């Protein structure tokens, strides 16, 4: 499929917010089929005073669509070697951190630890350094792990459609690839060198993963780089476009907020918890079916408070340094985690709120016969 997602420049996206009044927000809240204008209304400054109403509406939609459950996953960092120079990231090539590349056996051992802890959804993460860690490695690892896990997601360098198809066959069920920012100028500003500088290639990656047959594709933006309202609108546009083109694929959206990382990068445009919440509620109301992720970047207080309000998936017990599950003293993490609780502790917190923590909802063994 030769189709390309395009979206307006950020200053054009900003224009959406100028004309919005309280009445637009009220209408958007209860619209049966919300459109882009509704999403803009929900992301607008005018909607800030409606945050409690947005939370209720978002919670209601989420419960109706997903039930009272939160799905749990853990990231598994495979390699911290990266050829990109990105000003916000702890793995950036210039940073003097201890780099580590797991061997297949080490990666498998890490995965088994997560499995023993009760995880059946894991996210395999790697810096972008194809010569150090490429498709062959991911494929071999997937073949080793697929029978132990209900789903295997990857968050690695952008790959080609054929490579994604190969990984799908090997048992990878989903792909996460975040644009980081949809603001084209800021994208250029923060991506200093490396293959990641190619915005268009990265932007087209979710479509490649979907057309390769992946069950699920995750998109997202790193909050704190650009204006979050316009970012939310661009995310909504991207999501709606992907849905139209790839109706067989499920989609998720992630909202990582910039955390302290090696290199001392501070958010260019800080995003508060209120802002983040507004964005999550807005996306939920805009798209009732999308999976929304809330990672351990956020603190326990916030994560517990948000249970049931819109997010459907939480990471737990995460370590962002390769080898960190076997050796908790491993150095060289990608970012500092905000929620250090174990999986069991997070599960207890979820249950305490009247929700069921779910560790498994699909078996990748079913896809082995796929073409």
């Amino acid at each position: 499929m030769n189709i390309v997602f395009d979206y307006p420049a950020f200053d054009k996206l900003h224009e959406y917010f100028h004309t919005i009044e309280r009445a637009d927000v009220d209408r958007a809240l209860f619209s049966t089929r919300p459109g882009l204008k509704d999403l803009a209304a929900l992301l607008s400054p005018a909607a800030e005073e409606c945050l409690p109403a947005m939370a209720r509406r978002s919670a209601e939609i989420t419960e109706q669509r997903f039930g009272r459950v939160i799905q749990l996953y853990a990231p598994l960092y495979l390699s911290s070697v990266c050829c990109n120079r990105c000003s916000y990231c702890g793995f950036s090539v210039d940073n003097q951190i201890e780099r580590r590349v797991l061997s297949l056996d080490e990666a498998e051992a890490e995965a088994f630890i997560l499995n023993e802890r009760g995880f059946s959804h894991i996210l395999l993460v790697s810096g972008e350094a194809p010569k150090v860690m490429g498709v062959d490695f991911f494929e071999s690892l997937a073949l080793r792990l697929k029978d132990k896990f209900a789903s295997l997601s990857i968050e690695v360098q952008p790959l080609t459609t054929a490579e994604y198809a190969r990984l799908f066959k090997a048992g990878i069920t989903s792909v996460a690839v975040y644009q980081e920012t949809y603001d084209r100028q800021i994208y250029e500003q923060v991506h200093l060198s490396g293959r990641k500088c190619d915005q268009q290639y990265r932007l087209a990656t979710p479509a490649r993963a979907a057309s390769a047959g992946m069950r699920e594709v995750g998109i997202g933006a790193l909050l704190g780089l650009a204006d979050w309202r316009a970012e939310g609108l661009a995310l909504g546009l991207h999501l709606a476009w992907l849905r139209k083109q790839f109706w067989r694929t499920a989609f998720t959206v992630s909202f990582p907020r910039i955390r302290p990382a090696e290199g001392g990068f501070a958010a260019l445009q800080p995003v508060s918890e209120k802002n983040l919440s507004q964005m999550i509620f807005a996306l939920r109301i805009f798209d009732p079916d999308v999976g929304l992720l809330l990672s351990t970047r956020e603190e326990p207080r916030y994560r517990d408070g948000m249970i049931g309000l819109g997010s459907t998936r939480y990471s737990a017990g995460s370590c962002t340094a390769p080898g960190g599950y076997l050796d908790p003293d491993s150095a060289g993490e990608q970012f500092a985690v905000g929620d250090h609780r174990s999986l069991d502790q997070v599960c207890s917190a979820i249950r305490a709120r009247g929700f069921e923590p779910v560790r498994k909802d699909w078996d990748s063994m079913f896809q082995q016969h796929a073409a």
Partner: protein
Amino acid sequence: MLTIAGHKFSSRLFGGTGKFSSSEIMKKALDASGCEMITVALRRVNLNDPGDDIMSIIDRKRYLLLPNTSGARDADEAIRLARFARASGGGDWLKLEVTPDPRTLLPDPVETLRATEVLVKEGFIVLPYMNADPILALRLQDVGAAAVMPLGSPIGTNQGILTRFQIEIIIEQARVPVVVDAGLGAPSHAALAMEMGADAVLVNTAIAVAGDPVIMAQAFAKAVEAGRMAYESGLGRQQRESMASSPQSGLEFLD
């Protein structure tokens, strides 16, 4: 403006040419409807009583012809009819109908999908008549349908839009125009389809068998226009409850 396969239409009402009491009334009714595309069927010539030739009545400069494959019971029959239609000078446009059940005339989804795939490859602009099944609509788009034509209710029943929920999903997901076809028995049905966001409607029986088909054609034209205007002006949002402003309840955990 409505565009199907690159062709622009200023009217969102498509007309049919069946069941009129006379050619004269058909001509006047089509004229009054303002439609720019009309369906025709293919039949064997009755050698003993050839009757009027519809092609001598229709102004081809004014109306784009949309030959249908009515009568086809499977994909092969539909494909054969399509080739006849093209050979008859009907152009490349095709309303694909595959209706194996003579009682309900409901379309066969499996054969329709198969025929669409073949005919698109042969260069036809295929508008498949289909049951209002959202997944089928997507599958038809995947193989190249230029528009999809879900039914409101079975052909000729005048029951209006009984498939509302499914048609709403089809419209929401569509990458091509959605033309609601069949079962639209009154202008209000057509208006509802347009308010829901359908791109066009196709009406035949309700106009052809009306007491005054010419006036009824005008009524449908107005209904289609009104429904479209309502849709474009932002209707379709039903407020389920009113918004009560409330204190920061439930969000005290935010810093």
